[in-house]
C-alpha cells in the first residue's frame, strides 16, 4: 500500500524479482532456525524444572544409589548448561536420543505417529473449509433474513463449546448410545469420524464467522457496488468479488488453524485413543520421557513454521498488494 503516494510506473516484474525470491527464502530459513531454537530452549529448561526422570526410569522401589546410577548414565549429573550445549549439538545432528522407557529412537517414534495426526488435521481442515466457506457466504448473503441470523447464532454457539465437551458428547451419543461409530482407536476411515467431527465443529464455526464478516465487509465496499454497476449478477459479485476478497484473511486464519490442529490434537487424540503424536506427547510428558517430548516438539515446531511459510506463499498469490512487501 505504501506506493499509493508514488504515482506512475512501479513494475512488479523487475530484474529484482529473482533476488526477492532468494531473499525471502533466506528470511524463511532464518525464521525456521530462530523459532525452533527458541522453542527448544524454552522446552529444555521447562522440562528440567518439571521433575526427575532418573527417579521415574529407575522405578518406584529404587534406592538412592540406583537412581544416582541412572542419573549418571543419562548424563543428568552434568551441569545444566553442559547438558543444554550437548542437547543443541545432538539436535543439530537430528539426534534426539532414545526413549527412556522403550529405548527406541525418539525421532523415529514421533515420525511413525505423525502421518496419523497429519491425516486427522488435513481431513479436518478440508471438511471444515468445504462446509464453512459456503455457509459463511450464505450467512452473509442472507444476513438480514432468518437463515443468515440462524447461521451466525449457531456458529457463535458452536464456537463457544469446548472441544473436549463436544468430543465427550459425540462419543456418548454416537459411539456408546447409538453404537454407530467406534469410540476409540485408529487405522480405519470410521475411526476418523468422531475425532474429525469434534475438531471440525469449532473450525467450521470459526470459518463461518470469518467468511461471513469478510464477505459482508467486501459487500459494504464500493468495488462490489461498482461490479453491479458493470452489469454483474449479485451471485457473481458475491462469489467472484466479495468472497475472493474475504479469502485473504480466511487463508491467514486457515494457516494458523492447521498449525493449531497439529499441535492441538492432543485433547482429541487422547479422548478417542487415536494413535497420533498428540496422545504420545501427553503420555511422554507424564512419564518424563524427555527425548520423545523434545523430538515431538521439534517436529511440530518445524511443521508449524513450514505451514506458515506455505500460508504466506498462498497469501502472496491471492493478494497482489502483499507481493511488494515481504
Amino acid at each position, binding site marked *: *500500500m505504501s*506506493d*499509493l503516494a*508514488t*504515482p*506512475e*510506473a*512501479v*513494475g*512488479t516484474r523487475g530484474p529484482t524479482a529473482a533476488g526477492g525470491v532468494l531473499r525471502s527464502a533466506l528470511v524463511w530459513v532464518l525464521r525456521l532456525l530462530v523459532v525452533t531454537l527458541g522453542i527448544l530452549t524454552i522446552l529444555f529448561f521447562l522440562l528440567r524444572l518439571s521433575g526427575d526422570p532418573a527417579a521415574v526410569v529407575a522405578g518406584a522401589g529404587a534406592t538412592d544409589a540406583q537412581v544416582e546410577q541412572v542419573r549418571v548414565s543419562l548424563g543428568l549429573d552434568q551441569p545444566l548448561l553442559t547438558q543444554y550445549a550437548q542437547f543443541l549439538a545432538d539436535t543439530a545432528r537430528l539426534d534426539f536420543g532414545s526413549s527412556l522407557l522403550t529405548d527406541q529412537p525418539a525421532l523415529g517414534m514421533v515420525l511413525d505417529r505423525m502421518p496419523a495426526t497429519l491425516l486427522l488435521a488435513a481431513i479436518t481442515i478440508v471438511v471444515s473449509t468445504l462446509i464453512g466457506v459456503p455457509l459463511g457466504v450464505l450467512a452473509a448473503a442472507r444476513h*438480514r433474513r432468518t437463515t443468515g441470523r440462524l447461521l451466525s447464532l449457531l456458529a457463535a454457539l458452536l464456537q463457544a463449546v469446548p472441544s473436549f465437551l463436544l468430543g465427550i458428547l459425540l462419543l456418548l451419543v454416537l459411539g456408546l448410545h447409538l453404537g454407530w461409530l467406534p469410540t476409540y482407536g485408529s487405522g480405519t476411515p470410521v475411526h476418523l469420524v468422531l475425532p474429525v467431527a469434534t475438531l471440525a465443529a469449532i473450525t467450521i464455526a470459526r470459518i463461518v464467522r470469518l467468511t461471513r464478516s469478510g464477505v459482508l465487509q467486501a459487500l459494504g*465496499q*464500493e*468495488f462490489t*457496488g*461498482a*461490479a*453491479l*454497476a*458493470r*452489469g*454483474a*449478477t449479485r451471485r457473481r459479485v458475491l462469489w467472484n*468479488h466479495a468472497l*475472493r*476478497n474475504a479469502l*485473504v484473511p480466511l487463508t491467514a486464519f486457515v494457516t494458523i488453524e492447521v498449525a493449531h490442529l497439529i499441535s492441538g490434537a492432543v485433547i482429541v487424540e487422547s479422548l478417542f485413543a487415536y494413535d497420533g503424536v498428540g496422545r504420545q506427547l501427553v503420555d511422554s510428558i507424564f512419564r518424563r520421557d524427555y527425548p520423545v517430548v523434545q523430538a515431538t516438539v521439534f517436529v511440530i515446531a518445524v511443521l508449524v513454521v513450514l505451514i506458515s511459510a506455505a500460508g504466506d506463499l498462498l497469501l502472496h498469490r*491471492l*493478494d*497482489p*498488494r502483499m507481493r511488494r512487501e515481504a
Partner: protein
Amino acid sequence: MTSPDPLLEITGLRLEAGAADAPARLVDGVDLAVAPGEVVGLVGESGSGKSLTMRSVLGLLPSGVRASGGRVGWDGEDLLAASEPRLREVRGGEIGMVYQDPSQALDPLMRVGDHIVETLRLHDPRLSRRAARERAVEALAAVGVPDPARRSRQYPHEFSGGMKQRAMIAVALANRPRLVIADEPTTALDVTIQAQVLDLLRTARDELGTAVVLITHDLGLVAEIADRVAVMYAGSVVEVGPVGELFSDPQHPYTRGLLASRPHLAARGAALPAIAGQPPLPTGRPPGCAFHPRCPLAGDLCVTDAPLLELRGPDHRTACHVPAPEGALR
C-alpha cells in the same frame, strides 16, 4: 427538456427510506431530462439526493431505500419498472458509472484490465477472453494510460490516483454506453489531474456521443464542462437551465447563494457570504418550500405551498414563488 426526445427523462421521482407510514423522503419529486450527447451538471450539497437520484436510474439503490413514485424514462422505457435482467443489460452496457474514489471502486484483487474484460464479457458472452483482453488494452490506451498492454496486467494499487480514474472511465466506456454517470469523479484527485479527467469525459461526448451526468458540488467543474445544470436542494430540483444562463442570471435564491459563496480572488480577505442555516434532514423537511427557513426572500406563500418548476427564460426553469429581482446578488 431541450430536445423533444430526451435519452433519460426522470419525472416526479420519489425515493423513501424507513417505515412506510412515516418515511424519510430522500428524493421528493425530482424532474430531470438528459438529451443524447448532452453534459448535465447535477449540483447540490451532500444529502440533497443527487447521487441517490442517479443510482435509482441503474436500479442500484442502497438497501432500505425504495422508489415510491415517479418514472425513470430511458429511451421510452421505465427503468423503475424494469426487470433485473433488463437492468443488468443497462448497467455497464447502456449506462456507464464513474465513481468518486477509484481506489475504492476498483476490486483490489483484480487486474485493472480484467475489470474491462469483465464488463465486456458480461454484455457479450460470445466475446472470447482473448479478444476481450485486446479490447481492454485498446480501451486503456484510449483514455491515455501509457504502456497499456503492461498496465492492463497490473493491479489497482500499482496505479496512481489519476491513472485509476482513467481506468475507471475506460471501464465505464467499455461498451460504448449512451450515458455515463460520473459521481464526483474528480473530488478524490489532485487539482492538476481533475482537468485531465474532465477532458476524457468531454472527449467521450465528442467522439462517441455519450451523454454525461456529472454529479458534483463543484460549480467550477460544471461551468467548465456542462451544457445544462440542475441544482438540487433537499431532495428536489430547484433550478435547471443552460449553464451560461444559470450562472449569469440565477433565479432561485439557493442557486444565488451557492454562486455567491464561491471564493473570488477579488474579494480576498473578506468573509465568504455563506447561506445561513443548515439544509433540513429528510425526516424533518419544512412544509411549503423546503428552502424557506434559510431564504432571505421567503414570504407567506413559501411557508405553505411547495413551488413547482416553472419556466423563467428559454429552457430555464426554477421552483420559487419569489420572482428574481433585477440584477440579483451577482
